[in-house]
């Protein structure tokens, strides 16, 4: 049901509706040619020096209901509507890169080939025209777009509504079906009403994250009308609150994402260092091997980055596990009970592995492609969207953690590992082959490092220094969480990730990292056995 009042103010709406419908029918050539002369007349109105003339010309284009109107207006807005110097013809630049630009005739749509940019004059616009164009285009979009683009258009007009557009929007509101779009339209109208001094309009604006809404509210908060100013301030406070929540959620997400990377990097170490007591400084390089496996698999299977990445998971585990076995057999077994020497020897191994990659592959970073199903993001609301690759890595980290817990708690190997670590001699006398358990455990820890590498290849550059940058962090996580405690590693990794993200905004990335390091150094001194220490005489070692 339309009221007579809206009918009267909605003549522009009617024209836009027609325009929109015509756009839909634009493929009909007959119609197009019939209107060619009218089109030329309205279009050429734009070719003027005065912005006032151009404003009128834009109005005329809208009123002309020509089906090419959106094309023209969009081109004008983007600065792509230009005049050929030689014959004054108006053309649309298709691609404005380089010196010669491909253009097409604005009227006929004929491709005119490439034209040197110096032969073209841009039809200039000012801010007032720009906003006029945006409003017009938004209106068109509101009528003909799908839900998503209608939502974007509604979002776009917020803060740019004048009386005329307000009438058009109200008309559109009657017909709009999507609640979300209606909500945005209401907000756009409310901002308009607020600008005219209606305090009641504020109600609709609560919780909006649109920056134009905030601008309008901020302006209204300084209004002379106490009622309006007061209402606006309250709404602003509410929005501020919501923004804060969003920021917290975002920090938490990034923190957990970083934390899961730390957990992945550290969890293998938690087994070799935490459970076996072997300190492996080459752990970082085992991670690096995993990442290079992902790269190598993509080289082997060109064009199928996703499949290659999936295959890299078991292969990366194997590669790193085998490298781990080689390290255990070649170096560590000779240094039993001499942790400091083990540390030095495995550090040597890490240098060799790094240099090996530098010599054999390249000292430069390699790119590992992110498969399509891992790219993009999920939008939670206006201010918050979660990137998919981080989400996947997070899930992967939890999966690996759960699997490891299962292995340690529920399998024969886990039982034997725990037996050997608690009392080697006793375990041996009960028929457990300690050497075999050592090898398997070390292989498991190393293999997990490989998995971490495969996951990391999706987030960071894959280069010879990849491992180095994670080794100190990984040790910090294990020590912070309490040696020999997988849960501790999980909690420590996640909390360090979050702490780092919380500190970063006001301290900067480097300072945040320094602060976290200092924090851990102090923490270890306060609680040398970490967050979740093992207690009792056995732990005294």
């Amino acid at each position, binding site marked *: 049901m339309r009221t007579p009042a809206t009918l009267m103010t909605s003549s522009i709406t009617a024209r836009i509706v027609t325009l929109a419908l015509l756009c839909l029918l634009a493929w009909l050539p007959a119609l197009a040619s019939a209107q060619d002369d009218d089109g030329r007349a309205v279009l050429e109105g734009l070719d003027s020096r005065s912005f006032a003339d151009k404003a009128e010309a834009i109005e005329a284009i809208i009123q002309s209901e020509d089906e090419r109107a959106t094309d023209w207006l969009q081109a004008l807005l983007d600065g792509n509507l230009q005049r050929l110097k030689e014959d004054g013809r108006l053309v649309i630049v298709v691609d404005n890169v380089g010196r010669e630009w491909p253009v097409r005739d604005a009227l006929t749509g004929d491709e005119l080939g490439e034209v040197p940019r110096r032969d073209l004059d841009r039809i200039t616009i000012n801010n007032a025209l720009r906003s006029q164009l945006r409003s017009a285009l938004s209106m068109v979009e509101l009528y003909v777009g799908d839900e998503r683009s209608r939502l974007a258009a509604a979002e776009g007009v917020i803060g740019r509504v004048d009386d005329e557009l307000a009438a058009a929007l109200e008309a559109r509101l009657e017909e709009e079906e999507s609640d979300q779009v209606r909500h945005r339209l209401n907000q756009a109208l409310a901002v308009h009403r607020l600008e005219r001094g209606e305090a009641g309009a504020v109600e609709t604006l609560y919780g909006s994250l649109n920056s134009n809404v905030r601008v309008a509210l901020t302006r209204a908060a300084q209004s002379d009308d106490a009622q309006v100013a007061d209402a606006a301030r309250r709404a602003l406070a509410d929005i501020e609150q919501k923004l804060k929540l969003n920021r917290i959620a975002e920090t938490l997400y990034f923190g957990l994402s970083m934390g899961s990377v730390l957990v992945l990097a550290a969890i293998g170490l938690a087994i070799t260092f935490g459970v076996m007591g072997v300190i492996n400084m080459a752990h970082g390089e085992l991670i690096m091997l995993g990442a290079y496996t992902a790269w190598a698999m993509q080289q082997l299977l060109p064009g199928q980055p996703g499949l290659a990445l999936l295959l890299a998971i078991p292969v990366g585990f194997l590669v790193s596990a085998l490298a781990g076995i080689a390290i255990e057999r070649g170096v560590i077994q000779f240094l039993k009970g*001499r942790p400091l020497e083990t540390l030095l020897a495995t550090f040597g191994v890490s*240098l*060799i592995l790094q240099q090996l990659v530098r*010599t054999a592959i390249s000292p430069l970073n390699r790119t590992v492609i992110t498969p399509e199903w891992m790219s993009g993001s999920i939008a939670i609301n206006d201010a918050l969207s979660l990137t998919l690759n981080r989400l996947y890595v997070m899930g992967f980290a939890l999966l690996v953690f759960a699997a490891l817990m299962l292995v340690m708690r529920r399998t024969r190997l886990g039982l034997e590992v725990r037996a050997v670590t608690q009392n080697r001699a006793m375990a041996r006398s009960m028929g457990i082959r300690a050497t075999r358990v050592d090898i398997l455990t070390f292989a498991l820890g190393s293999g997990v490092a490989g998995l971490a590498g495969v996951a990391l290849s999706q987030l960071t550059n894959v280069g010879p220094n990849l491992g180095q940058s994670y080794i100190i962090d990984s040790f910090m996580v294990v*020590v912070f969480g309490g040696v020999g405690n997988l849960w501790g590693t999980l909690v420590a990794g996640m909390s360090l990730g979050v702490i780092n993200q919380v500190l970063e905004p006001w301290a900067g990335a480097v300072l945040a990292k320094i602060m976290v390091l200092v924090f851990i150094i102090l923490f270890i001194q306060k609680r040398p056995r970490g967050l979740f220490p093992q207690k009792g005489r056995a732990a005294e070692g």
Partner: protein
Amino acid sequence: MHWLVHPFRERSTLLFLGVLLLALTIVTLLHIAVPREQPLHVNAYTVNLFGKYLSYALLAVAVDLVWGYLGILSLGHGAFFALGGYAMGMYLMRQIGDRGVYGNPELPDFMVFLNWDSLPWYWQGFDMAWFAFLMVLLAPGLLALIFGFLAFRSRVTGVYLSIITQALTFALMLSFFRNEMGFGGNNGLTDFREILGFNLRSNDTRLGLFLASGAALALGYVVCRGIVTSKLGRVCVATRDAEARTRFLGYRVERFQLFVFVVSAMLAGVAGALYVPQVGIINPSEFAPLFSIEIVLWVALGGRATLYGAVIGAIIVNYAKTVFTGVMPDAWLFALGGLFVLVTVLLPRGVAGLLAVRVRRRRGDDDSPVNREVAA
């Protein structure tokens, strides 16, 4: 001061000092007395290089003092070395005066570049040599005191201590990379001109620095030797091998650890202060964990808990590094990595251990307290 005199009654110390003196004399003579065209002439570049080795040797002695005798594997001694180096660098920076690129008499070039208008408080006083040289000792000493106090009080030892010392130097490296710290950021401090009024680019100054490094090494060696042969040194060894027992004998183990750790840090600082004028630059890369762990390798290769082994190790590894990086730079990291593995697996007592076995066989006697290394 009996403890400081005591080393001079030992044959091994006299032998070490004799060899050092001989080496210094020979190099000096070959540099000054042999004409330039002669093949035996040692040029200024080589003197400079040897001076650098000597300051590294002092650093290695400092590390051996804590690792060999106290059992504390510090993977962060490069931090103390670098702090001493920065203290010296700040002095040398102030000596540039208005001869810098920007000609500011007060501010070093990098501060002018960063648009700073006055000298930060912690740069005050570094124009005076005595103050700067005091800071060479105090800056690393203070860091070691605070860090050691916290660590030893809560009985953080073994691998844990190693890892947090590494984290310490890593955190310092990140800090010094920041321009806001006021130490020249990435580029560090460089373009030095004079030390105590002597032109740093002249050959005579280089020879002087080389001899000063030799003297510092001799002094540092005697101090360390004095400590390890005193009763305090035996308490250190006792702590290394059976910490709980030492505690139950009534020794405040953490204080002994702290004392020796601070002494060692100061020695490392002196080494850094001698190093900087000889290489002409100090930047945050000296804080890199890799450098600190390399120092440990020098000591391991030379043989720990001997002190002279540390000197041998420092010189061997650094000579090898000079040769390798000149001939085939790619191979150096392979060689370094291989050394780590070989020394720890096959040569746990280092070169000094080999020497000691030979000496013992010839003399047929048992070990002196020095060579009683942890065989376990």
